[in-house]
């Protein structure tokens, strides 16, 4: 096992491609028929696979993702502990795919079909199969494979399946893996915490569905022609990308392609449609357009993005949120497009999953994504705005720059989290924290903890009693209206605002050093490490990278990467190389430290500041006699007593100021220190990486050099360039003490208890 792990890690670390390599291409034509009886799906596909590698290929490898839901012993189910979303899978909720036949270039290859488990050799896992090619495919040759299959839809517990009338079909057809020159097929099993990886191409899909779904479907790409109906059924065709998109060349000369196809149907869908217009958004955010144009050295006209039709498929109870989904989608199309390159397709679809089908939510597919919302949310809550921006943002990181989500999930999730937070900040600002009362969100939270907390405290407060034989008695349970009356939130709650960018660091610090970022997703220590490293820690590393090289160079580095790897499959080293080239920065050391080690850092500052004490004791005079100096002599000489109040300190007073900066942790970054003095002057100094390597502490100001200036504040990293610091409470020092804030927040606790205890008193009488 250790050997396998080492090999996988090694292959990931050294994986960098020739920048001129072309990825293979896969063009699909699919016909599928859904039968409600038994939740069956019958399909037939033809895939034309173009071998763009430098190798001769002898077989084809396919994913059959739905088999992850076939039984409790699959790699996916074992990884989840046998449950999906915290619940056991019901007997009628399993799903599977059965391959009926495979032919290659009109020759039957079914007999050569072989199920394989390349990652863990589990025979119960049938999420990958391969078929031998009758004739080896040489570089540049095209292979045409025809696959017939039938499938039973799983109950929607993870990304795909059904919930009542709602169908969300993702990873629903046998899909080719990715062939990589020199490395062979990259076709991993479906692990618990991995997503997907496939080649770019085109999709022409015809769906045959019960007529109740007519005009209530959505899919990747655009609908191709009108629906055809009759005898209780209808058929609809989709093309991804659309025919017009396939013919449209980008500025780079490339034509848009996609690398997956998903579709959905729900007879309850309410449709909201509108169009994203770049000009409107550019007029709303002219400064941002100018900033990016300047950084990328382009004209405003060169920054222009195409208009995009947006369709939002909503559940009826969320119909009022159609415009909010649209606005959030446009936020992603505009800012991501501005920073990382245009969204090249004419259409995008946002899907709001049905109640009970939330497992389909928050997921991305080319030109279609799922969000997720609830009733009564407000825009300020950024729900569903944040998930919508994030998933729409995946059209760029994953959709266009299509990294291997199995082996480097952070290349899309982390990049997307970083960009999403910037976009949210620019468009929406702070998000608010709310408390729910009978499902109605209230803008505010209780600042103090409510009475209770453990069994004894709960019993004392009359909240809950654990009684033998009887069980739990809960006289004071949470319930919307009663809670409102008891808590009086209008009078007692405090408002809480969150900068979405701050959530990156707090998320990363939940699991700061379990694994390096750069690891295959399924090899992270646990799901907490996966979430931290793939999402928040990567975003933190990118934000610190931005701080390290500066805004403009960061933008250039990232844009170089996104342009170069558009419609291709980059690996981490490809990102490191492209960024350094674009940013013109030699910072390989940063990528090694931040992405390939578990190093963290906590810088802290300590300041000691005292007035210079008058000299006391015996001092030699010019003749060598010891003369005693007393405090009175010192005062007469102009020194002052220690007890003199600050306001009375005469000018010219000298201060002993000692500033010490310490570092805990192995992450070395050049650190700026800012000192602000009472005469209004300010100075900055830098603790260089090289110096940090030799010492864990730095003393920029020493008490042995008194000064007439008094230090009023000292700040480490004053521009907040590095989000890596594990503890920011010790980064600043202020001479003045804040008295207002403790009073302001303890007043909220006082009010909370005032009304809470009054309510408690009401129970007694």
């Amino acid at each position, binding site marked *: 096992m250790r050997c396998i792990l080492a090999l996988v890690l090694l292959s990931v670390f050294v994986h960098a491609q020739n920048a001129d390599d072309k990825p293979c291409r896969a063009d699909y034509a699919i016909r599928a028929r859904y039968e409600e009886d038994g939740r069956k799906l019958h399909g037939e596909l033809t895939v034309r696979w173009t071998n763009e590698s430098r190798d001769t290929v002898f077989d084809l490898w396919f994913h059959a993702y739905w088999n992850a839901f076939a039984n409790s012993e699959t790699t996916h189910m074992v990884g989840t502990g046998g449950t999906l979303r915290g*619940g056991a899978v019901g007997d009628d909720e399993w799903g599977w795919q059965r391959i009926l036949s495979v032919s290659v270039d009109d020759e039957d290859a079914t007999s050569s079909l072989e199920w394989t488990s390349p990652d863990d050799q589990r025979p119960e896992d049938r999420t990958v199969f391969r078929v031998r090619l009758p004739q080896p495919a040489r570089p540049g040759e095209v292979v045409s494979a025809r696959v017939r299959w039938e499938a039973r839809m799983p109950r929607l517990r993870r990304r795909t399946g059904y*919930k009542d009338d709602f169908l969300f079909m993702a990873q629903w057809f046998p899909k080719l893996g990715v062939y990589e020159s020199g490395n062979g097929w990259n076709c991993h099993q479906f692990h618990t915490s991995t997503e997907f990886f496939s080649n770019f191409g085109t999709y022409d899909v015809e769906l045959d569905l019960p007529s109740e779904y007519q005009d209530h479907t959505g899919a990747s790409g655009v609908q191709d022609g009108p629906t055809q109906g009759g005898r209780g059924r209808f058929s609809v065709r989709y093309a991804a990308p659309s025919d017009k998109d396939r013919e449209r060349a980008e500025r780079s000369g490339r034509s848009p392609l996609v690398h997956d196809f998903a579709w959905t149907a729900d007879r309850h869908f309410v449709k909201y449609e509108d169009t994203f217009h770049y000009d409107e958004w550019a007029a709303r955010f002219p400064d941002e357009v100018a900033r990016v144009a300047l950084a990328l050295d382009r004209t405003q006209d060169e920054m222009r993005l195409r208009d995009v039709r947006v369709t939002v498929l909503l559940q009826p*109870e969320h119909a009022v949120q159609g415009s909010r989904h649209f606005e959030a989608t446009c936020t992603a199309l505009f800012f991501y497009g501005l920073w990382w390159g245009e969204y090249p397709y004419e259409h995008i679809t946002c899907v709001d999953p049905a*109640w*009970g089908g939330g497992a389909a939510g928050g997921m991305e597919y080319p030109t279609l994504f799922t969000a997720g919302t609830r009733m*009564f949310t407000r825009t300020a809550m950024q729900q569903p705005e944040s998930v919508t921006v994030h998933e729409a943002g995946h059209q760029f990181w994953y959709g266009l720059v299509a990294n291997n989500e199995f082996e480097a999930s952070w290349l899309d999730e982390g990049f997307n989290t970083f960009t999403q937070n910037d976009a949210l900040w620019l468009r929406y600002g702070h998000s608010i924290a709310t408390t729910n009362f*009978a*499902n109605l969100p209230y803008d505010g939270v209780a600042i*103090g*903890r409510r*009475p*209770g*907390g453990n069994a004894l*405290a*709960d019993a004392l*407060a*009359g909240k809950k009693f654990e009684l033998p034989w009887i069980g739990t008695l*809960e*006289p004071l349970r949470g*319930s*919307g*209206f*009663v809670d409102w009356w008891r808590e*009086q939130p209008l*009078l007692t709650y*405090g408002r*809480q*605002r969150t*900068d979405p960018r*701050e959530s990156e*660091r*707090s998320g990363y610090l939940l699991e700061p050093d379990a694994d390096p970022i750069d690891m295959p997703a399924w090899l992270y220590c646990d799901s907490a490490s996966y979430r931290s490293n793939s999402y928040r820690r990567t975003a933190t590393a990118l934000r610190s990278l931005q701080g390290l090289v500066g805004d403009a160079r960061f933008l250039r580095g990232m844009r170089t990467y996104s342009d170069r790897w558009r419609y291709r499959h980059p690996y981490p080293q490809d990102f490191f190389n492209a960024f350094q080239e674009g940013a013109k920065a030699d910072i390989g050391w940063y990528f090694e430290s931040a992405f390939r080690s578990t190093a963290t850092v906590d810088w802290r500052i300590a300041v000691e500041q005292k007035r210079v004490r008058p000299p006391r004791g015996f001092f030699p005079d010019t003749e060598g006699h010891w003369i005693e100096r007393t405090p009175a002599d010192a005062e007469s000489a102009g020194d002052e007593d220690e007890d003199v109040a600050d306001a009375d300190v005469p000018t010219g007073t000298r201060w002993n100021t000692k500033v010490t900066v310490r570092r805990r942790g192995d992450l070395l970054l050049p650190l700026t220190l800012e000192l602000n003095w009472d005469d209004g002057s300010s100075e900055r100094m830098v603790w260089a990486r090289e110096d940090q390597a030799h010492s864990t502490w730095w003393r920029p100001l020493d008490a042995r050099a008194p000064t007439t200036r008094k230090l009023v504040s000292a700040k480490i990293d004053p521009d907040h360039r590095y989000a890596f610091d594990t503890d920011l*409470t010790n980064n*600043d020092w*202020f*001479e*003045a*003490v*804040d*008295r*207002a*804030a*403790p*009073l*302001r*927040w*303890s007043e909220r606790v*006082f009010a*909370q*208890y*005032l009304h*809470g*205890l*009054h309510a*408690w*008193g*009401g*129970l*007694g*009488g």
Partner: protein
Amino acid sequence: MAEADRADGRVVSLDALRAALGRPAIWLSIVMFEIVVSIGPALAYFLWMSKATAHRYAPSSLLANLGETFRFDQREGLAALGDATGQMGAVLALLALLAGCFCAGGWLQVFLERTHGESVRRFFYGGARWFWRFVRVLPLTLLLLAASGWLVYGGPWNVLVLQFGFDVPATDYARLETLGSEQTVVVLQFVQSALYGLCVGLVLLWGDYTRTRLALHDTNSAIWSGLASAWTIARHPLRTLRPHLVLFLLEAFLVTGLGLFARSVESDLVRGGKPWTTAVLCAANLAALVWRVILRGARYHAAVQVSREIVRPIARPDPWKKTLGGPGGPRYPIGGDEYAVSM
């Protein structure tokens, strides 16, 4: 005032409000007590925050908002503080429950005596006099609340509403994913919340009438008084509920008004207001508390008025029935040999 008018909820309520308002010494004493017990957790928070932020945060930088970075970096301190205040709060909640029993006795003594003057003395006397009897009502109140919770959130709701009404299997009671739409779930939870709120309101009303009955009849059995009060409320729902409903609306009206004012003040703080607005917030809270304490007193006055009208006086044995002679003088059994009256 005619009997019918007196039973009118509005008149009873206004009488009650006037009676409670007219005893500032009592409600100020209660408010002072509630302020004193609430200071503990607030002081703990103040001391912790003063220490945690001293010299580490720019003055006033935390006035508007405790951002994510502050909350996260101080999470250990905040958690420890939360645990400590939660446990301290539990003791204070118990104290508040007992103080509630005491205050109920005090208010009832004042309103039952029909005399004037020395309200505070009579309040404390009544508090002490009825305290233990009212403490016995407390577990009954908690039991009824637990039963309400069980009815609305436990087995009966799950079986009768979710299972029979909506075909939700037992495995899905927590998530309700079987239901067809979020709207259905929200409506159901809304109804649940409203029902529970109604139950809590009725239990509190029952508690008021039970304590009033105990005091009115000067009896000891909380259970018997509780059953009798429940019967009285069931027989006279309008007459018992109406004055309390009016008082509740009065309380809700002013408290919500003050709440909206406090919220706008807090908005100023969030937008970067001045530290002194904290004092305004505090004043708004104290005003709301004073109003709530007065209305709690008014509830007892209303309960006394209504109970006097609809609760039959208890039949007690007449100690003078078989004797002759008045209080203070010699008494002789009727038919005895020692004393005879000649006409």
